[in-house]
């Protein structure tokens, strides 16, 4: 399935992407599976998703946890804990 992935703040700087469209294998349909799939891209991605830092996720603008599922054409975002206000 095809989804859009967005990256924000420190994570955007680390991976050097602000957004990309990815074509996923059939079994990758949860946030945790997507993290594992992206982590295989290399050391930087591995560190990001399996290191000690917290990575928050949203699907279509709603905060979700690791077990949340997405669908074709959804917008998934990864970002650090928020620090506004």
């Amino acid at each position, binding site marked *: 399935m095809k989804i859009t992935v967005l990256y924000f703040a420190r994570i955007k700087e680390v991976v050097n992407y602000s957004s990309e469209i990815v074509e996923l294998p059939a079994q990758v349909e949860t946030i945790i599976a997507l993290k594992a799939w992206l982590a295989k891209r290399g050391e930087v991605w591995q560190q990001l998703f399996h290191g000690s830092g917290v990575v928050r996720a949203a699907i279509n603008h*709603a905060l979700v946890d690791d077990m949340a599922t997405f669908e074709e054409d959804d917008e998934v975002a990864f970002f650090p804990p928020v620090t*506004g*206000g």
Partner: protein
Amino acid sequence: MRRVLVQAADFSYADEMQTIQQACPQAGAITSFVGLVRDQVGEARLSQMVIEHYPGMTEKALHAIVEQANVRWPLLGVTLIHRTGVLPANAQIVLVMTASLHRQAAFDACAFIMDYLKTEAPFWKKEIGEFGEHWVEARASDETAKQQWNQPQ
């Protein structure tokens, strides 16, 4: 009255106060909060703060927080403005105003909105100054502050 804005421009405290007072003639109490860019980080001087956000999600998150506050308290009006982009030291970042008949609801709703904004609205701050630049770390105390609203009163 609900007024929720995400903008690069500064806001006028006086204009916003006039707007909410005129929209809520029955209000007996208006509580406000202004968050500012501090001019120091520890001992080092700060020159700029950059505020990044997630357009689209930000507006939804802020509207959802204001909606929750309206469900919890009898509010006559709420104003919530958050700035984004590059801000100098001492600049205004965020404004919350809550109007109610009595002060308790206005105080609680204003603090509630800030506690939820700090943990649920997709903003990220980067500080730039004598120390170089770094992303602000989320504070555990903000999560704790939010959790307290879920405890039995």
